[in-house]
């Protein structure tokens, strides 16, 4: 409280910090009014009470003293993080307890809890291990126990049957069918039938569904299911340490009762015989399917099974599970069968050696088949002691049966299925062409890379047929090259005439002289270096170059086709430009950087007179194209700001999104056009306020927009910023509308073409 100011009571009029709403003047007036009412003679007193009267403050303290104190205490608690934490901590448990009914609480807390759990595990995994230990260990123990049970069962059975005749028969079956011996043993020894399946609601012990096998009889299933539940409860209560488990197996003579517990329902199967341990898995998966499909109905079950009638199908499937007893056959004790077993073993080992050899031969055969053109092996295997092979075969491919004989594999031991198809392997296509074209003895067909080359000489009629045949080859097949076949029907003179005629028709070639000298053909003329190579044409015509004397002088042809080639070579147009010959004009189409266009115009001007017209009118410059439109779109946009605000005025998110999309399009469009794009963000302010402040505000606005665009994925390198202060107003008037229009960020796009 300061008393050094001129008026000692001035501080009273000054609002104390945090109490700006206390209107002293009004209070003083009110008091005066009350005083006048009480004592009318005071009416003559001064119209306004001195607002600086210290008694007002005293009055306020008197009236509000307690509340001020309470508020002060509260604000102290709110301001001090430790006190606030203590205060919130006191009510937190109650708050949580009241909020448990609200589903959002779980959603809100879940991420934090997950993070906390992760941190806890990272810091000291033992804590969580200790928490989970009582849950995990019984589960592991049970799982190990079941596995050991299963192993023992399998081992016992295997040992018992390995040396009997029956065991040998099973070994035979295992080898023949390709399943493991243990599985065959189990298949024959585990004879069982599931007689009853109960689906029992865990909580109430009430029966949800019961299915019995045809020949099975039992008491009232509803009572049985409740009694089973009662017995489970009884055992659980009677033996401590098994609170979360129950009886999973009960045996009574030939009957075994298996109980598979699920979260809401227990599946109880009554099985006659000796069920294999795998049956647990089958029952369990049926139970989990039921839980998966009818989770809610099971949870809500209150004795009304009407809505759960469909689980009966699942249970019926379980009841169908059985392993029928194989035909009764009496076998002696292992020792009596021993001599026979030894004989069988001897036979078996001889047989196995042979079979091993056969297998090797078979593998070798398959490898050979796979290497053959026109044969695609899709599947191989063994069935009933025979080899099987399936695949595709071109009818012209080698016969797989023949190859069998070579490999000393009996065809009787092989089942093969070949679907016909047309192969495109060059050797097969060659065979097909040979079969189809029946080439004369002077023509040789050979494979040359992925082409089939015909060489030699043939009559014209055959050549015509061969050309037709080559055209009929499917696409993707090797090409039939007939240029190496000379037409024997055409005398060499005729071929020479054809050759000369062909050259005459070529643009860029002018023949000035033809004739024969010393038994050789003579040809002379002018040739543009960009025209067809006469030597190539010579070979194609089947004329030996050694019999030809040719003299060609270079010249610059003005045929449009040649001029186009020359322009292509000298101008190297960008990929966006195409040259088209239209009559005697060359028309360029597409879009190109303006620098290139300039060069092209230059080239068009220096074309010799008489040359085709080079028409560049249809070429657009880069800025005329999509990128130019993009530039105009971007430049047409501005971002508005409220007075004194460096952040864009609200409601412009969509505008910024659109802007960011355009800028990203600009980024991707520019490089293929060899254009470097730069975007300048210029911040502006209105003319209120000092110049330096406006300058920094305008720059801040441009920076803010750049940051917002960057957040939307625009490459920051593309964007440059500058602040223009109030120096570049869009409207010069001194109105609020003008000021508002001036508070903006504007965009300038600069496209620099590179060649």
């Amino acid at each position: 409280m300061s008393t050094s100011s001129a008026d000692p009571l001035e501080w009273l009029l000054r609002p104390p910090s945090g109490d700006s709403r206390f209107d002293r003047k009004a209070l003083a007036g009110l008091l005066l009014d009350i005083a006048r009412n009480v004592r009318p003679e005071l009416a003559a007193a001064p119209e306004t009470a001195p607002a600086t009267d210290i008694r007002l403050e005293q009055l306020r303290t008197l009236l509000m003293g307690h509340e001020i104190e309470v508020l002060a205490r509260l604000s102290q608690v709110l301001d001090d993080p430790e006190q606030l934490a203590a205060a919130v901590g006191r009510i937190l448990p109650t708050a949580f307890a009241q909020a448990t009914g609200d589903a959002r609480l779980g959603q809100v807390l879940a991420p934090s809890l997950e993070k906390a759990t992760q941190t806890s595990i990272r810091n000291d995994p033992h804590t969580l291990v200790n928490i989970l230990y009582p849950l995990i260990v019984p589960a592991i123990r049970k799982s190990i126990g079941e596995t050991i049970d299963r192993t023992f069962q399998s081992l016992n059975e295997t040992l018992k049957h390995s040396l009997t005749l029956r065991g040998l028969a099973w070994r035979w079956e295992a080898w023949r069918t390709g399943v493991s011996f243990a599985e065959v043993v189990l298949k024959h020894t585990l004879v069982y039938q599931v007689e009853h399946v109960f689906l029992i609601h865990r909580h109430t012990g009430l029966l949800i569904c019961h299915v019995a096998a045809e020949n099975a009889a039992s008491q009232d299933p509803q009572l049985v299911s409740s009694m089973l539940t009662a017995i489970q409860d009884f055992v659980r209560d009677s033996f401590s340490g098994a609170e979360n488990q129950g009886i999973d197996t009960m045996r009574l003579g030939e009957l075994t009762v298996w109980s598979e517990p699920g979260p809401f329902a227990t599946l109880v199967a009554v099985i006659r015989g000796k069920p294999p341990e795998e049956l647990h898995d089958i029952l369990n998966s049926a139970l989990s399917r039921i839980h998966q499909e009818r989770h809610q109905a099971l949870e809500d079950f209150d004795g009304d099974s009407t809505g759960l009638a469909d689980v009966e199908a699942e249970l019926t499937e379980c009841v169908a599970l059985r392993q029928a007893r194989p035909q009764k056959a009496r076998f002696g004790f292992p020792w009596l069968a021993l001599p026979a077993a030894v004989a069988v073993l001897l036979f078996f080992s001889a047989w196995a050696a042979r079979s091993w050899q056969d297998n090797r031969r078979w593998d070798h055969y398959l490898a050979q088949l796979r290497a053959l053109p026109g044969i695609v092996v899709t599947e191989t295997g063994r069935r009933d002691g025979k080899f099987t092979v399936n695949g595709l075969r071109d009818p012209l491919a080698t016969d797989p049966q023949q190859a069998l004989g070579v490999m000393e594999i009996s065809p009787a031991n092989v089942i093969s299925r070949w679907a016909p198809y047309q192969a495109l392997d060059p050797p097969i296509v060659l065979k097909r062409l040979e079969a189809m074209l029946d080439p004369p003895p002077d023509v040789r067909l050979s494979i040359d890379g992925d082409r089939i080359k015909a060489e030699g000489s043939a009559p014209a009629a055959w050549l015509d047929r061969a050309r037709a045949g080559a055209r009929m080859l499917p696409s993707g097949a090797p090409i039939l090259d007939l240029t190496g076949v000379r037409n024997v029907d055409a005398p060499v003179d005729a071929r020479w005439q054809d050759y000369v005629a062909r050259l005459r028709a070529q643009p860029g070639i002018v023949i000035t002289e033809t004739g024969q000298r010393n038994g050789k053909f003579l040809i002379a003329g002018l040739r543009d270096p960009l025209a067809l190579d006469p030597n190539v044409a010579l070979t194609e015509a089947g004329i030996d170059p050694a019999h030809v004397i040719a003299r060609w002088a270079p010249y610059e042809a003005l045929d449009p086709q040649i001029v186009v080639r020359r322009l292509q070579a000298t101008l190297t147009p960008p990929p966006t430009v195409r040259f088209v010959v239209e009559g005697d004009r060359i028309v360029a189409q597409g879009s190109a950087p303006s620098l290139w266009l300039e060069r092209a115009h230059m080239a068009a001007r220096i074309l010799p007179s008489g040359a085709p017209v080079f028409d560049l009118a249809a070429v657009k410059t880069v800025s005329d194209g999509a990128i130019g439109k993009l530039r105009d779109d971007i430049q047409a946009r501005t971002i508005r700001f409220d007075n004194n605000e460096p952040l864009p005025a609200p409601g412009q998110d969509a505008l910024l999104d659109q802007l960011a999309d355009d800028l990203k399009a600009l980024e991707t469009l520019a490089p293929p056009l060899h254009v470097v794009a730069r975007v300048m963000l210029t911040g502006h302010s209105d003319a209120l306020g000092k110049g330096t402040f406006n300058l920094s505000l305008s720059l801040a606005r441009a920076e803010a927009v750049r940051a917002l665009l960057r957040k939307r994925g625009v490459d920051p390198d593309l964007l440059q910023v500058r602040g223009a202060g109030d120096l570049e107003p869009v409207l010069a008037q001194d109105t609020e509308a003008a000021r508002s229009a001036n508070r903006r960020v504007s965009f300038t796009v600069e496209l620099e073409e590179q060649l």
Partner: protein
Amino acid sequence: MTAMLQKKICMLGAFSVGKTSLVRRYVSSVFSDTYLTTVGVKIDKKTVDLDGRTVNLILWDLAGEDDVNALRLSYLRGAAGYVLVADGTRPATLDVALSLRGRVEADYGPLPFVLLLNKNDLPDQWTITEGDMDGLRNAGWWVRSSSARTGEGVEDAFMDLAVRTVR
């Protein structure tokens, strides 16, 4: 199997108040009474017809409470209601019934129940006054006197309970 409504009902009461006799003649029973002394529970079924709808009451007859055998309250899990049985000729059994009700309520919350005061065929030994019964009725209890011998009150009690559990 045709789908139908089932409700689990427990029979509770002191030793030898006649619970087992009550159900023996009026329900279909397949298990022998020795279950009661071994496992502590015997399951029976009572089928009632509620407006054309068949309701199977699965009755869990729990072994009587005495000094040796404490009641296994875990058997009440999932019950839709229960029948308290007391012997009208022995007031102590009513006290047992009252305490049983308190323990059930503590563990499983309020469930529909019926109190049967059994052996009303022995009027000369009857010790519970109509006033006592009215007192209980006023406290919201469903009280009936019954007789395993004559069958009086048994059917009605099950019917009452069935209506209240299905509702």
